[in-house]
């Protein structure tokens, strides 16, 4: 009898311990009107985390109102979980922090669901902020989020391989001397013939968000679009002749063997491909790990009809949760973090493009010529992704369309393919 009473006690204690472990709460939350909490999607040890740590220490020290911010660093996992899972859980338990970060494409969904609130009045020198950053964070005419850095993509090229293929410096395009899709195809052809393989890795094996992010500028260059301006219709837009011309280019590049749907891993970095379509993050990789590759960056090829240079943009942003009661304090923190000096610190630490024109000027003399090129391209041709509530579904339909277009034997008729895909996309735009 005594024995089983002891067992009862042990089991009860263990169960309570187990349950309390499940509900253990982080001690990082702060209380009080002047204490604000912020969640970010990276680790404390990342360059981004280190910049944030310095910025927050500075904010806590210098703000005159006595606000005190604490940050929870919640890294994203490989599949995009981690941070987003935490946000989703907080939504259900109504425990979002005062300030949070969110990826650009999430703006519309978060704003429409009233998770975040407008922050127009907290942003200083709005004219100084790049239009792509403003467009990315704007929903129904109000600014809901502010990107703290920018990103961009260019055509990386191997100088040695270009030389070997007989492509002279005079033939190379620049931001003022654009190259059309035809000229891009011609150079690709010469490289393919010389090296007997694909000329460019366009990252077509990446079926994620990279697809819309990096390839939609071809559509915009041709004056085509994914949806109408209001984001309510894809039929008549995604299947237009202008949009089709961009998909035809992608299909032709694969069909003619100038690019491939299954590129070799690090093919450009190891001198197997003469060109690579990639973002600013590749500069850091090449400069630190592949020092033998002598490379430069070329602008996005333009539609021969419009000659309009368009390049991708997009970034993570700061936003204020709709549930916070400390709007003044949260606003002060967002204002501080999106100011020139703090953005400069973040961009320099992360080696990413700046989100403000003034920060660009500050960075220019301190970054490599390749980085300078991407900053300039961003300023003259950066285009934000569409702000849509069901962006993930639209982005996936876009990526599916790219994949289908590249399987040219199965889908030889691009116009017919786009007609079907536009109808599929329409269901997400009601």
């Amino acid at each position, binding site marked *: *009898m005594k024995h*089983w009473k002891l*067992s*009862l006690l042990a*089991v009860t204690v*263990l*169960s309570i311990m*187990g349950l309390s472990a499940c509900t253990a709460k982080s001690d990082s939350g702060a209380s009080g009107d002047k204490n604000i909490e912020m969640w970010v999607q990276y680790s404390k040890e990342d360059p981004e985390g280190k910049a944030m740590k310095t910025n927050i220490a500075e904010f806590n020290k210098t703000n005159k109102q006595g606000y005190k911010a604490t940050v929870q660093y919640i890294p994203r996992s*490989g*599949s*995009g*979980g981690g941070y*987003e*899972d935490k946000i*989703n859980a907080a*939504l*259900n338990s109504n425990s979002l922090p005062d300030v949070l970060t969110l990826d650009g494409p999430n703006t519309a*969904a*978060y704003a429409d*669901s*009233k*998770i975040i609130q407008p922050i127009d009045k907290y942003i200083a020198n709005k004219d100084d902020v790049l239009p792509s950053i403003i467009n990315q964070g704007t929903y129904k005419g109000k600014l809901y989020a502010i990107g703290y850095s920018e990103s961009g993509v260019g055509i990386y090229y191997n100088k040695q391989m270009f030389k070997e293929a007989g492509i002279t410096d005079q033939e190379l395009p620049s931001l003022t001397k654009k190259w059309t899709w035809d000229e891009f195809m011609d150079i690709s052809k010469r490289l393919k013939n010389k090296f007997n393989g694909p000329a460019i890795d366009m990252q077509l*094996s990446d*079926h*994620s968000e990279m697809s819309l992010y990096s390839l939609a500028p071809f559509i915009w260059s041709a004056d085509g679009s994914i949806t109408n301006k209001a984001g309510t219709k894809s039929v008549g837009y995604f299947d237009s002749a202008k949009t089709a011309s961009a998909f035809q280019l992608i299909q032709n590049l694969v069909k003619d063997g100038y690019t*491939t*749907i*299954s*590129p*070799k*891993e690090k*093919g450009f970095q190891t001198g197997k491909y003469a060109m690579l379509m990639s973002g600013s993050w590749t500069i850091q990789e090449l400069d630190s790990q592949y020092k033998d590759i002598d490379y430069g960056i070329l602008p996005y090829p333009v539609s021969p009809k419009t000659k309009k240079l368009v390049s991708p943009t997009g970034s993570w942003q700061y936003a204020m949760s709709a549930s916070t009661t400390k709007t003044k304090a949260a606003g002060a923190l967002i204002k501080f973090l999106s100011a020139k000096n703090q953005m400069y610190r973040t961009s320099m630490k992360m080696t990413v493009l700046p989100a403000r024109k003034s920060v660009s000027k500050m960075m220019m003399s301190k970054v490599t010529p390749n980085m300078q090129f991407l900053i300039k391209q961003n300023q003259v041709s950066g285009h934000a992704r569409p702000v849509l509530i*069901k962006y*993930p*579904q639209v982005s*996936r339909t876009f990526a*599916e369309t790219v*994949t*289908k277009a590249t*399987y040219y034997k*199965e889908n030889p008729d691009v116009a017919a393919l786009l007609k079907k895909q536009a109808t599929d996309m329409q269901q997400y735009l009601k």
Partner: protein
Amino acid sequence: MHRNSLTRSSQAWLYIFPALLILTLFLFIPALMSIYYSFTNFNMLSPQTRVFNGLTNYITLLKDPIFGRSLRNIGQFVIFIMPLQVGTALGLALIVNKKRAGNTFFKISFFAPVVVSLAVTSVLWLYILNPEQGLLNGVLSHFGISAQPFLTSPKQAMFAIIGISTWQGAGYQMLIFLAGLQNIPTDVYEAAELDGANAWERFIHITLPMLKPTSVMILTTTFIDAFKLIIQPMVMTQGGPMNSTITPVYYIYRTGFTDRQLGYASAMSVIYGAAIIIFTIVQRRITGDDNNVK
């Protein structure tokens, strides 16, 4: 006596209480919540605006071509993986059951893929199967076979995943088969040998029948596990090319957590869960009565 048995019964309940509590919290309650959510328009970003929408999700599901495609894909996977994985596992178990030099090496080699995370092996296989520079195409070229597209071909991608899954999972089942094989009394084999039965006859008439309980257990677990396929397509193909490797669990995950449509994802889970239960019952009826599994 009566009092004593009451105490014993209370004790039994007491001992299963922690497990029951955890199961209730993390299995029964979520399952019931899923059923409830499947009749709502639950969007993860706006849980407060959740309303009952009757059978809407189920009606949408009937017309959803991707869900239909995912069911066909998983059907193909299950049909191929069952004989392949179980057959391979039995073959490997027979190899390592014989006492010979290097047995430990073989056991470790066959079991090694099981202990490595699926995500890691999937990434490794991505390199091996790369059509342009992959190891496998390099090997095939030595035999005069042209480079294969593998994961980039809508026709080959699912078969590549089946092959990888067989390699990954067979080691675990091999261990269970091995335990089953070692439980067969040697005197049965000796008697059969005295009666003049050759190795094949001994395998067919002794090994296989005596492995039946083990086989039923392995078939059932392989069957249920096969329906849960998600990591390999998620890492290696993202369900492509052209939805040729999308599976129901991956589609449910994507709908619920990427698209945030928890109501619709719940409806898919309910239908799919019910289908697996029915299939499992049918499968157990075919492979033998439940009571035979001991």
